[in-house]
C-alpha cells in the first residue's frame, strides 16, 4: 500500500510536510475556531467533547463507521453533520462549505500518523459489500471501474498525471487544481466525471460505501490529513 502523497512531485510533498505552508492548515485553524465557538442555537463542540487533541485522537481513522442512532454507515463529515443537527439544533452543514471542511479537517488532523482501521463486519457489512462491488463495477462512457486504474495501473501515467492507488489517507486534502480544501467525496465525484459517468450526490449511500471500502483497503496506511494534492 502506497499513500497518495507518494505519487506527488517533490514540491507537493514538501508543501504537505510543512505544517505552516500547507494550505490545508488554514482550514484546520478555522475548524479549531468553530470547535470552541458556541453555535447559534446550541453548545460549542468543545462543551461536550472537550479538548479535541484528546477526545478526537484517532477518531477519524475509524470512519466511515456504523452509527446505531442514525441506523446507517456515516463518514466523518456525515457524523459531524448529524451532531450539529441533533446536539447543536442547527440546520446542518452544507457539503464543501467552509464550516464542514474546517470541522472535518480539524478532527481528521487529530488522527495524523495513526493507522486507518475500520470495522466492516456486523451492521456495516452490507455497506462494505456495496462499496467493494462498486469498486469493481464498470461505469460511464469510458466503461471503467475504479479497480482498472487504481489497482491495475497505479504508478503508470495518464497523460502527464501519475495514477495513484486511490488511497484515502490524506483526505480532506488541499487540491492545487481546485485551490481549496476538498472532501474525499468531492474527489470521488471528480473520478466519476473523469470516466464520464453520472456523479452520485454528496452524502449518497454509494459514496459512503465506496469510502468505507477504500478505508478498509488502506489497511496499513496512516492518516495524513490535511494532505496536498495536485
Amino acid at each position, binding site marked *: 500500500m502506497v499513500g497518495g502523497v507518494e505519487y506527488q512531485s517533490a514540491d507537493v510533498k514538501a508543501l504537505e510536510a510543512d505544517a*505552516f*505552508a500547507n*494550505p490545508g*492548515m*488554514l482550514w484546520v*485553524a*478555522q475548524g479549531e475556531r468553530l470547535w470552541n465557538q458556541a453555535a447559534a442555537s446550541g453548545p460549542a463542540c468543545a462543551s461536550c467533547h472537550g479538548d479535541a487533541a484528546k477526545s478526537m485522537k484517532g477518531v477519524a481513522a475509524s470512519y466511515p463507521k456504523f452509527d446505531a442512532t442514525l441506523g446507517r454507515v456515516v463518514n466523518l463529515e456525515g457524523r459531524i453533520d448529524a451532531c450539529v443537527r441533533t446536539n447543536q439544533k442547527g440546520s446542518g452543514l452544507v457539503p464543501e462549505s467552509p464550516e464542514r471542511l474546517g470541522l472535518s479537517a480539524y478532527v481528521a488532523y487529530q488522527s495524523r500518523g495513526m493507522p486507518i482501521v475500520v470495522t466492516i463486519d456486523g451492521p456495516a457489512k452490507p455497506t462494505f459489500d456495496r462499496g467493494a462491488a462498486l469498486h469493481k463495477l464498470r461505469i460511464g462512457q469510458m466503461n471503467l471501474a475504479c479497480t482498472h486504474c487504481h489497482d491495475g495501473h497505479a504508478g503508470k501515467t495518464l497523460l502527464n498525471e501519475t495514477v495513484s492507488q486511490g488511497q484515502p489517507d490524506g483526505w480532506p486534502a488541499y487540491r492545487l487544481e481546485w*485551490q*481549496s480544501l476538498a472532501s474525499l467525496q468531492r474527489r470521488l465525484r471528480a473520478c466519476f466525471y473523469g470516466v464520464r459517468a453520472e456523479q452520485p450526490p454528496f452524502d449518497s449511500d454509494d459514496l459512503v460505501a465506496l469510502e468505507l471500502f477504500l478505508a478498509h483497503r488502506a489497511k496499513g496506511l496512516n492518516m495524513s490529513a490535511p494532505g496536498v494534492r495536485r
Partner: protein
Amino acid sequence: MLGRIQVPALVKKGEPFEVRVLVQHPMETGFRRDMNGRAIPMNVVDKLKVSLAGREVFSAEMGSGMSANPYLQFYAVANEAGEIVVEWSDDKGETGRATAKVVVARSPS
C-alpha cells in the same frame, strides 16, 4: 478572513530572520464565470502590509496573477523584541490581521 504569520521562536539581534505569511483568500481573477454564466467580480488581496514593533518592514500590492491562498516569505531584521503584525485588505474592502511575537535573543557577551 483567516491568515497566519510565522517567525522563528528566537531571533538574533540585527540578523535577518525568515518571516512567512499565509492568507486564506479565493483571489478571484475577475475572468471566471459562475454556473449561470455571470462574471464573478474580481476580488483579490490587493494590499498587504507587515510591521514590526510599529515600523513597516514589508508591503505588497498583489494582482490577479497570485494563486488562491497566497503565501509570502521574506526576511526582516529586529533590534528589539516586539510584535510583528500583518494586515491586508481585498477589493471588497474586507480586512484581516494576524500577529506573532518576535523574541530577540540576548547577545552572548
